[in-house]
Every structure is written in structure tokens, then in C-alpha cells.
């Protein structure tokens, strides 16, 4: 295994590719030899990250479209497949966070969060997984909030979304592992959500990107349907918050 080029020649699609995490994942994948397509909503920002990616690998590209619309997602996936020829890796990094508990969370906010975090993950997976099944291999990496397993006040919506993404990841694993398609989930603390954790500070986007690299490469070939918390240990520590 060439550890300096862990993804040499592989094709990767990164949704939410202009956000801090998606962007860092895309750049790290490109440095490790992957042909990367980033998908996001802001055309100008997509163009910027594509320029950075092409400085590393000319075969990288990006497309802008509505990540909350089913038809737009199908179109974006078609563009990505046309550009790459195939899809070996799908990173679902698109998402948003709006605060509120069960009573105060506005209906529109909740629907927006479901669309961004859950529906986009399901729709991109649905569009890309047939190509992976045909190739008899594929790696799906869903990135979401660590509130999938820990609880903090005022985070009802994102916690529900993160839990759904985690459960969806495990279900995909069980359905598609016979085609050698692996799905795994990375959870991390989103910006603006403070929690006590054993490791102080907050994770850098590079920490999440390294986890995404780990799941995409052969180093993790044993691991399926798993969750990797890049959160300084908060998921168990949250139990102490009653102190």
C-alpha cells in the first residue's frame, strides 16, 4: 500500500464540497491521488475549490445545483459520473444546523434541516449506489453531527437528523455489502455547539478529513456499518452533564 497516495486512481464525489469539512476532505483526497468532483449550491465557491483541486489534480471538477431538490441531485450525480466515468467513493458532507428544542424549533427550520442533512444523504446514495453495485465495490462515508449519540440542550432537530443518518448508514451497509459496498459514518461536533469533552478544544477540519481518508482507503477494509466519532470523546462524557 502506498501510504502517500492512498486513493490513487479512485473516483470520489464530495457533497457539500465548499463547506470547511467538505472542502478539506476534497483537497486531502486529491492529494492522495483521487479524481474528485465537488457538489454544492454556490457556483462561485464551487469554482474556487475546483481551481484549488486542479492545482493538485487536473482531473478534478465541480458542479453547482440545489442539494435539496431530488431532480437537481439526479442531475448533479449525472454530471459527476460523466466527469469521473464511475464513482468509487461518495462522501455526504452537506448539512446545516439550526438550534431549537422540540417546542421552539420552527417547522420550516426542521424541514430545511431534514432536507439538507437526511434527504440529501439518502438521495445522493440512491443515485450513486447503482454504479458502485455494478463495479462490485464502493465506499460511502456519511458525515454528520456527533449529536447522533450524545445529547445537548436546544439541539433537537440536528440530533434527530444525525440519528437518522447514522441509522441509514447501517442499513445501507446491510443491504449492499453483498456488492462489496461499504458505508460508514463520521460524527463530529458542529460549529457553534459547545459540549464538554475529555480532549479540549475543537476538532480541526483536517481531523475529520483524516477520518474520511481512513474510511475511503484500504486501511479500513475490515470496517463496515461503523461510526467514527471525531469529537474528543464527548459521546460518553455527555452522560456526566448532570453534575
Amino acid at each position: 500500500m502506498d501510504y502517500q497516495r492512498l486513493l490513487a486512481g479512485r473516483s470520489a464525489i464530495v457533497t457539500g464540497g465548499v463547506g470547511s469539512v467538505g472542502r478539506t476532505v476534497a483537497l486531502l483526497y486529491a492529494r492522495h491521488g483521487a479524481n474528485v468532483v465537488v457538489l454544492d449550491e454556490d457556483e462561485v465557491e464551487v469554482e474556487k475549490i475546483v481551481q484549488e483541486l486542479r492545482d493538485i489534480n487536473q482531473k478534478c471538477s465541480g458542479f453547482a445545483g440545489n442539494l435539496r431538490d431530488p431532480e437537481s441531485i439526479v442531475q448533479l450525480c449525472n454530471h459527476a459520473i460523466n466527469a469521473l466515468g464511475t464513482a468509487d467513493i461518495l462522501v455526504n458532507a452537506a448539512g446545516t444546523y439550526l438550534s431549537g428544542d422540540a417546542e421552539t424549533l420552527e417547522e420550516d427550520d426542521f424541514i430545511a434541516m431534514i432536507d439538507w442533512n437526511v434527504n440529501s444523504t439518502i438521495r445522493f446514495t440512491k443515485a450513486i449506489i447503482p454504479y458502485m453495485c455494478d463495479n462490485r465495490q464502493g465506499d460511502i462515508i456519511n458525515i454528520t453531527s456527533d449529536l447522533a449519540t450524545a445529547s445537548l440542550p436546544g439541539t433537537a432537530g440536528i440530533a434527530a437528523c444525525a440519528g437518522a443518518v447514522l441509522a441509514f448508514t447501517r442499513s445501507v451497509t446491510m443491504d449492499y455489502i453483498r456488492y462489496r459496498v461499504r458505508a460508514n459514518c463520521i460524527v463530529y461536533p458542529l460549529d457553534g455547539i459547545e459540549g464538554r469533552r475529555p480532549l479540549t478544544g475543537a476538532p480541526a477540519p483536517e481531523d475529520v478529513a483524516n477520518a474520511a481518508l481512513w474510511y475511503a482507503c484500504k486501511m479500513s477494509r475490515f470496517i463496515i456499518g461503523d461510526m467514527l466519532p471525531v469529537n474528543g470523546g464527548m459521546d460518553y462524557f455527555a452522560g456526566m452533564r448532570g453534575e
Partner: protein
Amino acid sequence: MRNYAKLLEGKYAVVTNGGDPCGCAIVKKLAMHGATVAFGVRDPEIGEKILGEISDLSPESFYLMLSLADSEGIEEFCRKVKECFPLTTVLVNNPYGDIKRTIIESCEEDDRYLLQVNQRSVMQTLRAFYGPMRDNRCGSIINISSNTVFKPVLGNPFLTLSMGTIGGLTRVTAFEGGEFYVRVNEILSGIQPGHSELSPCPLKIEGSHVEGMADLVLFLASDMSSYITGQSFTVDGGARRQLFA
């Protein structure tokens, strides 16, 4: 960009059971990535063989005779390693105890053996190496246990019992060590002690299974996982998830 081919350059690592197939793969992987490794073995021939294979990659690595069933021997092993290494920053506890007897068939001697090998040995090495890591605010501890904790095997209750405590110990140590940048994680292995293949699982994996385990140890030992602590990773090709499917 970080040098991903030498993720442990300049680090000193300890592997308690380097002689079994998994431990051997871990020792080689850490050495390949630039670590100087001290490892325990029960058979000196195996120790010499491994040392021969890594001597070019990591010339200062060495082995010591170690039986995890011998409490005093573990103390001696830790003392000698501390004399040789300026600072151990990676500790891999790879206990191996396994007695296939049912609860009715087993005796107290079995209990004592398994608890010493799989549980007390981990406490002893933690006691020896955690303090210096904490004082130097740097360290990664990886405790290897068994996926039988979640997916029990009939006729093997004591493996589940003795390995089951490692998860709790991992989380407590991570809790203590977090503010000192000492990370502690657990791997629930689907490769049973002494074996080199995974137990039956949904994922048909090509290539060496022990090599895959070693890659996870490398990830957790290196700065690639610098914000990951207190976690339990199941490496069993999906066998555990299948239980709940």
C-alpha cells in the same frame, strides 16, 4: 502535506504480545512507519524472526520475553522498556487469553488465568506507561479486546467476561487522560486470540486480516486520529451488526 508513509517517525511504541499473528502484524506495521518498537513474546524464536524482518526499518527495536500470565514478569518487562526508551508514546495492549470451557466445566484456576492475562495485564501496563505519557502530555493507548463482548460465542464465557472489562477501563482512562492529551481507544477484534483470520462475517475480505487490524492500530497510534479518544472500534467485517439485523 503530512508524511503518511512515516506516520510514527521518531515515536517509541510498546506492544505487549507481539508473538501472535495479530501482534506480529502490529509490530511490523508500527516499525514500517518509523516507530522504535519494544514487544513482548513468549517464544524467543518468534521474537528473533520478527526482529529480523524489521531490523532494516527500525534498527533499535527489540523484544523481551513476556508472559501476560506472570504478573511479576509484566512489571519486569515494563521496567526494562522504560530503561531503554526515553518516552513511550504508543502502548498497544494485545492480550491473548482464551479457554474454551462452559461455566459448568470451568474452575477457579481458569478464572484467575483469564483475568490476569486479559484484564490485570492491561492494568499493569497502563500503570507503568500512562503516568509518563500524562506528564509529557502526549500518548496513544490502544487496548485490543474481542468482539465476543457483543457477539458471544457459545462455550466461551470467560473470554467475554475478561475482555468485557477492557471497554470500561478504556473509557475511564480516556476520561482521565483527555486533558493531558493522552488518547485511549479500544479495538473489538473479530480475530480470536492466536488466530490470523476473522471469524465468519458478512464482508468477504481479500488480503491479510491481521494486516487490516494493524492498519487500524496505526491509525489510532498516529496523529491522523488526534481528536479521537474513548472509542471502541469493532473490526469484524460486520459480524456484530449482523446480530442486530
